[in-house]
């Protein structure tokens, strides 16, 4: 019997709600949201957590791992408290996306995929977020999108998150 150690009851209730969207014999459909829910709780997806999600949804662990490693918003390693993904794709780059990224790199003293010394921020390079008109855009912990990120707004954001 597998007793869940990492997945909280609250998380399970959220997963259960997702499960209502799909046919009863297609529980695997909820794996993307289940992993997102699990990641919200833990900040990242340790193997044991993926295994628990697999058990909860009745799917092979390796199939969960395939999903977790395919979609790039899942964190397979511990992250800073705030993961900041900055879009540097071409349309954004034309409107300051790369500049914003460079500004953050020097402000936080880290390069891509690095964690700040205080453990608060991890900076990652994002791909198209579907908000090119708002460039520069960035995501905080996958879910909060910040638009038109001028240096002043970046300063404000970092201050707020600190």
């Amino acid at each position, binding site marked *: 019997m597998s007793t869940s150690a990492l997945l909280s009851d609250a998380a399970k209730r959220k997963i259960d709600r997702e499960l209502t969207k799909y046919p009863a014999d297609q529980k695997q459909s909820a794996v993307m949201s289940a992993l997102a829910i699990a990641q919200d709780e833990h900040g990242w997806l340790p193997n044991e957590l993926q295994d628990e999600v697999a058990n909860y949804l009745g799917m092979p662990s390796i199939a969960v791992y395939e999903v977790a*490693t*395919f979609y790039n918003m899942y964190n397979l390693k511990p992250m800073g408290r705030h993961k900041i993904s900055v879009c540097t794709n071409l349309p954004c780059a034309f409107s300051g996306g790369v500049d914003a990224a460079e500004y953050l790199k020097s402000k936080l003293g880290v390069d891509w995929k690095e964690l700040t010394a205080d453990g608060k921020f991890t900076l990652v390079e994002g791909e198209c977020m579907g908000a090119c008109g708002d460039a520069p855009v960035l995501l905080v912990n996958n879910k909060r999108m910040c638009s038109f990120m001028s240096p002043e707004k970046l300063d404000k954001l970092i201050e707020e998150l600190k």
Partner: protein
Amino acid sequence: MINLEIDGRPVQVESGATVMDAANKVGTFIPHFCYHKKLSIAANCRMCLVQIEKAPKPMPACATPASEGMKVQTNSEYAKTAQKGVMEFLLINHPLDCPICDQGGECQLQDLAVGYGAPASRYQEEKRVVVNKNLGPLISTDMTRCIHCTRCVRFGQEIAGIMELGQAGRGEHSEILAFVGKTVDSELSGNVIDLCPVGALTSKPFRYTARSWEMSRRKSISPHDGLGSNLVVQVKQDRVMRVLPLENEAINECWLSDKDRYSYEGLNSEDRLGKPMMKIGDAWTEVDWPIALQAVAEGLKVVREKHGAESIGALASPHQTLEELYLLNKLVRGLGSGNIDARLRQVDTSADGRLAGVRWLGMKFADIAGLQSVLVVGSTLRKEHPLIANRLRQAAKKGLQVNLVHVADDDLLMKVANKAIVRPGGMVGMLGAIAKALVEIKKASLPGDVATAVAGIVVSPDAMAIAQSLAQQAKTAVLLGNFAQHHPQYTMLHVLGQEIARLTGGTFGLLNEAANSVGAAAVGVEPGKDGMCAQGMVRQPRKAYVLMGVEPQQDCYDPVATMSALRAADFVVSLAMFKGAAAEFADVVLPIAPFTETAGTFVNAEGTVQSFNGVVKPLGESRPAWKVLRVLGNLLELPGFEQENINSIRGEIAPDLQAFVDARLNNTISGVKVDIPAASGGIARVAEVPIYAADPLVRHAPSLQKTADARMARRIGLSAGLAEKLGITTGMDVRVTQAGNSIILAAAVDNGLAPDCVRVAAALAETAALGPMSGSVSIEKAAMAAAAD
């Protein structure tokens, strides 16, 4: 039917066929990697791109449906450009380490690079390196060589029924792996090695031991389960280096179980006997053949003279060849004894003399695909007959309803429609209930004794569901597995199974345990009216025993009683491949040749006669058992031991072996009164034969002994309720006591086990001390037991 042209040649294919199918039909080779006829279409390698008239781009032959009037060019400039382009991409990140690659010489990528590769690479960038993975003791990895065809992943999902490998990551970073920290534990895992078109997945035991072209390829037949897989045995310098499947669609298709594939390691075991051995005084000494044979003849003669011929008994392994079993039977009966048996783990032989013929599957393996509902009684399926299980799995995907009556709810990795998990003592009653339910559904009647026996049974919902599944389908079968055949009420299970099959108009059959169970019975290796069965010879000990291919501690129903009978005997000769524990019970050991070192014949569960030749010379001074028996026959001055070669033995058995066997196959038992025993209380032992412990050869194969299956077999399974009651958790050491004998092993709580059962495997040295394969046991925490002592 669809008409199309492949390279100008007209061809007709069924609707739904692909361009690849059409090309195969006219014998046109289209290069490919990911395509495999037994797997789903992935169309990812893109090597099979061909030119199709009016198509705007090159099309993958494996995935493009053939259509009327289609004109396909597989070899045009256009097609070749596409194919060569793909080859260039495949090679840019391939390490080209062919000189140190085990796949070298049998590598699809290497072979196709000859025709489609360029002399020099245009790729000037850095090559990808992928970390190797530990997939367990059987499969070695060199993942940088992987070309991402996903055949191994699809094999797990579609054939083995368990997804253990996956492709993680994406794009250039995608890699094949198992979930972190896990190994590939499927009993069919080795097939991914054959499927891998490159050297990414290779055989771990075989690693770096030979180049493929140094070895000769010789055909053989697997000596393990009742399937009789066809083998290609690869030999270098008179040593078996590796075993691969020989494709036979009717038997093993293109697959091998890991047992068939890796047991060859036992052939070269340190424990192999190279010379005859004898007990001289108290010393155990190697001797020359003439001395040993003379001693055997003398030993048997003395016992016969002193105690009579009936004091001699013979136990033979059903993994020995037809010719060997035939000659042993002739020898024992020539001595005047009827005590011979190869059903070493069968305790209930009450149907002897009432069986119409040789027990068998009742149908061909290929017929499984056409079944609509099947009742499997007392079988772990996957671990007994991995590839028959696969046939059921594939049929289940197409709608076969699999019904199960067993003591444990192990994951069969297939959809099980209905199951009744009962204690060993409840199995007969469950079949009675199913029969009773069928009578109600079918408005049929049962023979008087059966009707009386089931009168008091209450039909449970499980029994009713199984009966309905069988009643509603036209093509049905009832199959008894190993556990049923080893069951103390086997005859009742057989008769009721037969009754259920009769009521549903279906087939009744047995999943015969060993490679030659059918053959042994066909040549009469079974006691007649005047003889004793294997258990009989143990219960009423004989004065002399002849063993052939038997390790009595592991191969017999009751190791304790068997060993004590052997020890007490005046004379024991063992014809054996391995030294084993022979010194403990034998007076003379004669080294005999395994299946790779002698010609022979196995008759599989479906009754197919499969003969083979030796592929290497016998090791040391070991000799084919048929030769040994012939000389013994002569030394014992028995008539009819003049056979010069294997063919003369075969001819003596019957001019046409297949017809001989076919004429004898019959599962009908008649004249047995059905009696359903009352359920017994207490804690019941469930003793199964673990997959890698079934016969001496596999027990001597080291890599198989390192698998998860081998490890798990050495744990004591407990029903969940029982574990809770006793406060036992997985991993805890527990003491199991059966009839005064105890062993201590680690426990494993088993949620699928019937209530109040303890699962202690048979066929293991570690559990031999417990005695019989059924009975009641007690169990306690080992620490507590120690404190009480």
